[in-house]
C-alpha cells in the first residue's frame, strides 16, 4: 500500500490562506489504512482548519470518496465543488492529480506527503518495501528487496558500512543485505551471494521516464 503523512497543520493553513470555502477531501484507499488521509482524518483536519484560520466567515467541510485514484469515485466531485473555492486533498499524489485533472483549472492542493510503498510492520509502524523498479529480483534475495531497502540499492551484497546488522546511515536502519544474508543462510542458499550481479537495466524503473501499462483486453472498444 501507499503510505502518506499529513503535512503539518501550519503548512496546510498557509496553503489555504485566502480561500473562503474549503473542501477537505479524504480518500478511502491506502491512506485510510495508514490513518493519515481517510475520512476520520479529513473530518479532524476540517475542524482544526476552521479553528486555525483567522479569516472570518471561512467555511471548511469534508468528504471522503472510496478512492481518489479512479474516475468513477471522484466524478461526483464536479458537482460537490460548486460551493467551494478550493479542494484540499489528503489522498496520495495519485489521488491529488486525479482530482486536479478531473476539475482541470480548479485549485486542488495537497495536504499530505506521499512517502513510500510499504506496510504496517506492527501497529503504528510503517516501513518501505518496494520501489516499483519494474524488474523484480526478490527470488534472488530471499524475498527482501535491496533496491528499496538498501540505502544505496546495491546488488552485490552489503557494503563496508554494514555493521552489527545496521546500515551506515543510522543505528535505527537495518542493513537490508544483512537481512538477506540471514534469510539466505536459513534457506541454505548463501551461494546466491557469490554470483557477480552485472549492471542492471534501470530503464524499467522511473529512470526510463514516466511509465504506463496498456492492457488491450481491458480496453473499451470505440462502439462501447
Amino acid at each position, binding site marked *: 500500500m501507499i503510505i502518506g503523512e499529513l503535512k503539518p497543520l501550519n503548512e496546510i493553513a498557509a496553503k489555504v490562506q485566502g480561500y473562503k470555502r474549503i473542501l477537505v477531501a479524504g480518500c478511502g484507499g491506502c491512506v485510510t489504512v495508514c490513518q493519515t488521509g481517510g475520512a476520520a482524518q479529513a473530518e479532524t483536519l476540517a475542524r482544526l482548519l476552521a479553528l486555525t484560520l483567522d479569516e472570518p466567515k471561512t467555511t471548511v467541510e469534508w468528504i471522503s470518496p472510496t478512492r481518489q485514484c479512479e474516475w468513477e469515485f471522484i466524478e461526483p466531485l464536479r458537482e460537490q465543488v460548486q460551493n467551494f473555492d478550493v479542494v484540499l486533498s489528503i489522498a496520495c499524489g495519485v489521488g491529488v492529480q486525479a482530482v486536479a485533472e478531473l476539475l482541470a483549472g480548479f485549485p486542488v492542493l495537497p495536504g499530505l506527503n506521499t512517502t513510500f510503498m510499504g506496510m504496517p510492520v506492527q501497529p503504528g509502524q510503517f516501513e518501505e518495501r518496494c520501489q516499483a523498479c519494474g524488474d523484480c529480483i526478490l527470488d534472488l534475495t530471499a524475498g527482501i528487496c535491496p533496491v528499496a531497502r538498501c*540505502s*544505496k*540499492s*546495491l*546488488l*552485490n*551484497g*552489503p*557494503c*563496508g*558500512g*554494514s*555493521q*552489527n*546488522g*545496521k*546500515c*551506515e*546511515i*543510522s543505528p535505527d536502519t537495518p*542493513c537490508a543485505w*544483512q537481512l538477506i*544474508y*540471514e534469510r539466505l543462510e536459513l534457506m541454505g542458499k548463501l551461494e546466491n*551471494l*557469490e554470483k*557477480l*550481479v*552485472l*549492471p542492471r537495466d*534501470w530503464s524499467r524503473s522511473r529512470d526510463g521516464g514516466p511509465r504506463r501499462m496498456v492492457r488491450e483486453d481491458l480496453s473499451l472498444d470505440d462502439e462501447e
Partner: protein
Amino acid sequence: MLQEGHFAVTAEIGPPRSCNTEFVRRKGSLVQGYADAFNVTDNQTAIARMSSIAAAAILQQEGLEPVVQMTCRDRNRIGLQSDILGAAALGLTNILCLTGDHQSFGNHPEAKNVFDLDSIQLIHTARMMRDEGRFICGDEIKVRPQLFIGCVANPFADPFPFRVVRLKKKIEAGAQFVQTQCVLEMDRFRRFMEMVCAEGLHEKTAILAGVMPIKSARMARYMQKNVAGMMVSDQLCERLEKAEDVPKEAINIVVEQINQIREIPGVRGIHIMAVAWEEMVPEIVRRAGLYPRP
C-alpha cells in the same frame, strides 16, 4: 613495485574544499618520496571537494604517482565511464573503485544519490573497458584505457564471513590490488587474512592493509562507538588515554601495527590513511623501516 615483490606503501591525499592548486601541491610535497603511490579521495565522506581526477593530475605534474578514487555515489554509468576515459587520457591509470559513503554523512545530505553501479560492477566495467575495449552497452572503445584497477575491502564490516566472499567477487570482477579499511583491531584482521589465504585470494591480487594514526584518545573512542564499518580495540584506546605525549604514542602505535602487519601472511603492503595529519607520513614510513622507497 608490487610485481617486483617489494612491500608496497601507499598513502592518501584529500583534495581541498576549494580550487586551491597550491594546497594540493603542498600536501603532495609533504609526502613525496615516502610512498609508492598516493590515493586521491573522491569527495570523501560525501563532502564536495576538488575532483579526484583534477587533484590527481596536479600531483602527477609534481612527479607523484596518483591513484584516482572513484565512487558510485555521484555519477551514473555514463559519467563513470567518461571519467575513466578522461583519467586514462591524462595518464592517470591507477583507479580505485568504491561504492562511496552515503550522502547523509556529508555537507549535502539533501542531495540525490546515484548508485547506478555498485563498486563491483564498476570494477567489472573498468576491466571490460581495458581488456575487451567495450563500454557497458557493448559499443567499442577504439583506444582502450590502460588501467591498474583497485578495490577496497572492509574486514571489520558484517556479516564477517561475507567479507571474504565480497573480496572474491571483486577479484573476479577484475581488482588487481586491494586496500583495506584501517586496521585498528589486529585479531579480526588476522582472522580475515587467514580466510583470504585459505581461499588463495592473496595470490590473485595484492592486498595492502590500511593503517591510520589516531591523533587523540577521544577520536579513537568516537570511532570505536560511532563510525560504521570500523573496529577499534579497547587496548588501543587505553594506550592513547594513558599516554603523556599522545601524538608520539599515536605514531608508536602505528609503527607497531605496521610491524605486526608485515608478519601476517598474504599482506603485500600498507596503505597509510593519515587523515588531516599527512605531515606524519614521512616519520611513520621512516620509523617502520620502509624508507627510502625502492
